[in-house]
């Protein structure tokens, strides 16, 4: 059986640049937070970068290119379960954009990233040098809550990232699909008729 595939434009430059910028910003912020110097200025900058990326991605998810828009890839439980059933099979997914399960990850990781950014902005470690810029506007109860959330959320994010990378490996090994290349070049090999309106 030879499947007929054609080079299809999948990810626009905004999605791709934001994706790889997030990879860099997240690992920089995580690494500096965990292992970096006690004066955390660079960690703050990496966090602001993450914040900017999340905001832009959400805006692009509303106003952007077809495959970037939430309304085109976020699906209900029925479709999520139906797609999840196909995950173990060797059949390639040949999805045009995020599949319904991947959509859950996209929305989930953006939400947790937003929570992580917020917890950092409001956290006050009471060292008078690494104080979140918004901590001064809220009570110390809130700054402590923010501080206690910031580290656990970083590990949750790390687990999500590892799960994401694990899924990439699964698609490669099990389904023979390279999901990394399209995120770099923008193009994927898909069967004809996948692009709506074409």
């Amino acid at each position, binding site marked *: 059986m030879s499947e007929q595939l054609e080079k299809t434009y999948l990810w626009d430059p905004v999605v791709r640049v934001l994706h790889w910028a997030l990879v860099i910003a997240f690992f920089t912020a995580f690494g500096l937070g965990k292992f970096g*110097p*006690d*004066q*955390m200025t660079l960690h703050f900058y990496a966090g602001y970068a993450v914040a900017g990326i999340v905001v832009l991605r959400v805006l692009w998810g509303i106003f952007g290119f077809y495959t970037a828009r939430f309304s085109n890839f976020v699906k209900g439980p029925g479709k999520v379960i139906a797609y999840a059933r196909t995950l173990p099979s060797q059949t390639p997914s040949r999805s045009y954009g995020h599949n319904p399960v991947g959509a859950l990850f996209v929305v989930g990781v953006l939400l947790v990233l937003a929570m992580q950014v917020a917890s950092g902005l409001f956290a006050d*470690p*009471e*060292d*008078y*040098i*690494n*104080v979140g810029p918004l901590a001064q506007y809220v009570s110390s109860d809130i700054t*402590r*809550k923010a*501080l*206690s959330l910031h*580290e656990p959320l970083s590990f949750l994010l790390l687990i999500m990232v590892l799960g994401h990378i694990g899924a990439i490996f699964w698609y490669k090994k099990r389904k023979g699909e390279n999901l990394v290349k399209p995120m770099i070049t923008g193009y994927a090999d898909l069967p004809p008729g996948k692009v709506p309106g074409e």
Partner: protein
Amino acid sequence: MKKLLISTVIAATAATGAFAQSPSDTAKARRAFYTLVGYEMASLGAMAQGKMDYDAEAASQSAKDLMTLAGLHTADYYVPGTSNADLPGETRAKPEIWSDMAGVQEKGMAFYEAVVALNEVAGNGLDALRPAVGQLGGTCKACHDDYRAKDF
């Protein structure tokens, strides 16, 4: 003179019985101590970050007060049985303080040295103050990271 503020914490362990204060009193005194440290540090931090105009005299005075505080004999603020496991809601001091006294002492020494360094430069202008405050704040963080719970 140059003895570290917590240098005799281990000795205090033996002297526990000598204190008539309750564990809650100890936790209260400890937090009061750090409230004072924080109070001086807050104005230094604000100056260093440009949120408050630099004032050589005020900076020097705060640095001097920190020196005084760092010179206190604080071992009796660290009586065993006063961690957040013993006194939930009253303190954020983790039991690790008492199980890793050497580590605490090392970080306390870094704090003390940063206070000494700060005192040498606090009156010499904002550019001299900033790195010294950064260094000192870093020693606050280093200890908070390992020995203080994030919340009550």
